[in-house]
């Protein structure tokens, strides 16, 4: 790695030649303010707040998009730059509503924070607000163009990272908005509801559909038994809402908080993750040994990914595992197996799922299979962000709560189940159980390191007692096209299949960085949350899904065996080709 010598505010530094001025300044503890810049995305240089001075040049350059150079000398802060940055902010504020107190981003808004830091006390420019309707067409997110500052992060993440292209800059000049093509609503566009736009928006222009009221109404309704499940990724991020470090495993406190919020029963989606492995793993073994379906088998627990596939790659439908997502399995069992055991009428159950994901709000009514119990299997999805707000508003001292346990009989989980929350985790969990199903013995070392890590596409193989099983993992929706192309090419040219099993998660890093997780997610935060889940796995005395005693009881008492008729009815689903644009 080559380096360059430069000066930052007079201080000589030697930095990597690949850095931008923004990154170089950080090495000497100088923070240059940014607004449109996000470390997940290529620098876009839209807002202009990061301008710095080049010594011996009349030019000012944008630190986010300017590479360092040998001999360069920059000034990052002086009274003139302060005034310029303040003016940039005042101009943005002249087109942005002053509705902080009623905005979902109150307290977490990046524009609000900068306005505070720069001491904006008046608005010197004529106020020119946009008068445009909200787009509330999807069940997952709400687009409010009035609050948009045209930073472009949402369009960039939608196009460059996710490869979805639902959002684009439309129009020009001060009339520019970020919206779908052809004046359409988001629900008619290719939007996969992943919510990465809402996770990257610096202000309140794209926000999760807030359904916290529905939860409060349900716990207030004495005729309803409120039964809650929490997803794997929630436990390693929820603490951030209460100033804990990312990756802090807060499973027991989350159960405790839910009970204090009025939940009657608390289950864990990790249980159903173990169940998904039993069904999906058995399906894989059937495809491998009996040719019951085409290979590779592809995971289907991510609703943004299944939505993407149905629109962009419907020829992959036969490759999809028919196993439902853990959330939907947990919901179906809550209103059947559990309801029967506890002698509750499933009509009286209000089933809630706490998820790191906005697409999960869409999944619960995506088709008739989501009503396998005869009722809607999951009635409400709240994101991690919504749950954090509820806990705060309810006066619960989260950090000091005692650790509680989940309820039986569908609340216990193996280490494998918790790994569903991060990239490579479903694969690792599946390999642990599939190995046993094929070879009749457990793996000696259950840590499958080949599928771990943050690389966008990971490839590896596992030795099943002499048989090589080839696997691949993709995360960040845009990365999946590479794998789909490999599968298509092999099919068209009659070549050997490139993989036996592929795992796909729509969000970079997996669900731990889902569209409904706490803000300010960067790769550093992703890695911390991922280590939290691996630690949770390693701490578990039971590491493999098939060894979870509650799973064994469920099969013995209720389902019979994996892929039984009852399993198929409750735990499996179908996929269909969908139009890219509904209209």
């Amino acid at each position, binding site marked *: 790695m080559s380096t360059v010598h430069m000066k930052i505010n007079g201080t000589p530094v030697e930095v990597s030649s690949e850095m931008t001025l923004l990154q170089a300044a950080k090495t000497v503890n100088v923070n240059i303010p940014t607004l449109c810049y996000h470390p997940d995305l290529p620098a876009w240089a839209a807002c202009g707040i990061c301008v710095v001075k080049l010594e011996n040049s009349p030019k000012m350059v944008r630190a986010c998009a300017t590479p360092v150079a040998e001999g360069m000398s920059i000034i990052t802060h002086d009274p003139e730059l302060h005034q310029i940055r303040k003016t940039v902010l005042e101009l943005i504020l002249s087109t942005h509503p002053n509705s902080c107190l009623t905005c979902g981003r109150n307290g977490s808004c990046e524009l609000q924070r900068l306005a505070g830091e720069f001491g904006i006390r008046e608005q010197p420019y004529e106020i020119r607000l946009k008068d445009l309707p909200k787009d509330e067409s999807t069940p997952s997110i709400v687009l409010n163009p009035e609050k948009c500052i045209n930073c472009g992060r949402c369009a960039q993440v939608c196009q460059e990272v996710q490869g979805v292209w639902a959002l684009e800059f439309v*129009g020009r000049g001060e009339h520019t908005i970020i919206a779908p093509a052809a004046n359409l609503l988001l629900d008619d566009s290719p939007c996969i509801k992943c919510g990465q736009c809402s996770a990257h928006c610096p202000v309140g222009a794209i926000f999760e559909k807030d359904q916290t009221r529905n939860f409060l109404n349900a716990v207030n309704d004495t005729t309803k038994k409120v039964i809650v499940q929490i997803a794997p990724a929630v436990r390693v991020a929820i603490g951030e809402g209460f100033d804990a470090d990312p990756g802090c495993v807060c499973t027991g406190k989350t159960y405790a908080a839910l009970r204090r919020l009025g939940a009657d029963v608390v289950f864990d989606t990790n249980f159903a993750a173990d169940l998904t492995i039993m069904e999906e793993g058995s399906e894989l073994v059937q495809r491998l040994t009996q040719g019951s379906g085409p290979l590779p088998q592809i995971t289907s627990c991510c609703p943004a990914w299944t939505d993407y596939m149905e629109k962009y790659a419907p020829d992959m439908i036969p490759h999809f595992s028919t196993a439902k997502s853990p959330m939907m399995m947990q919901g179906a069992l809550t209103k059947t197996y559990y309801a029967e055991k506890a002698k509750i009428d499933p009509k009286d159950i209000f089933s809630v799922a706490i998820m790191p994901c906005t697409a999960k709000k869409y999944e619960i009514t995506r088709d008739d299979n989501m009503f396998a119990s005869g009722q809607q299997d999951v009635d409400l999805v709240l994101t991690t962000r919504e749950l954090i707000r509820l806990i705060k508003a309810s006066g619960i001292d989260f950090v000091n709560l005692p650790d509680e346990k989940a309820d039986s009989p569908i609340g216990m989980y193996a280490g494998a189940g918790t790994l569903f929350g991060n990239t490579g985790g479903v694969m690792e969990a599946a390999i642990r159980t599939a190995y046993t199903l094929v070879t009749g013995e457990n793996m000696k070392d259950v840590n499958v390191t080949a599928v771990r890590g943050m690389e966008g596409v990971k490839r590896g193989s596992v030795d099943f007692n002499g048989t090589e099983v080839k696997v691949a993992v993709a995360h960040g929706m845009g990365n999946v096209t590479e794998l789909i192309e490999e599968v298509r090419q092999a099919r068209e040219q009659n070549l050997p299949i490139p993989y036996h099993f592929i795992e796909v998660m729509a969000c970079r890093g997996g669900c731990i960085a889902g569209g409904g997780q706490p803000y300010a997610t960067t790769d550093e935060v992703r890695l911390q949350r991922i280590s939290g889940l691996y630690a949770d796995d390693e701490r578990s005395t039971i590491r493999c899904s098939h060894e979870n005693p509650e799973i064994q009881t469920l099969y013995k008492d209720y389902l019979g065996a994996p892929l039984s008729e009852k399993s198929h009815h409750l735990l499996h689903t179908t996929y269909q080709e969908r139009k890219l*644009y509904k209209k």
Partner: protein
Amino acid sequence: MSVKNDTIEFPDELLAFIRVWKEKPGNLIMVLHKVQEEYGYIPREAADRVSELLEVPLAKIYGVITFYHFFKLTKPGKYNMQVCLGTACYLKGGDTLLEELENLLGIKTNEVTDDGLYSIEAVRCVGCCGLAPVLVVGEEVFGKVTKDQLPGIISKFKK
């Protein structure tokens, strides 16, 4: 690879043009020009078809056609009355011509009359400032136009 909406059949000449340009950089704007030449605007179905043929996301196409004023998203009238508001024409009263045309035709700028015959558009310099103020209808250029001449010009384009 995905389910399609209603499609439009491009004429062979347009398809051949797209084939030639498909692999070249900057092809999108060239192709969109040709499409507008064919239809007078960019119909949604045509944008869908371009998206498919060039393998460019529809959102990107709308990004382009809403950015450049040249591209039209709605069908103009059979006779699109283009009033020049470039500097010279503006100084010579181009704006009063625009106002009078709106009165005479009973529509606003960028609107089309109910019979689909006329539309009004304000354009930038058309390159014949010596004739200011200028009105362009189709291929025909009218120079040194006065308000009184407008009814006569309109009646020239009746069919």
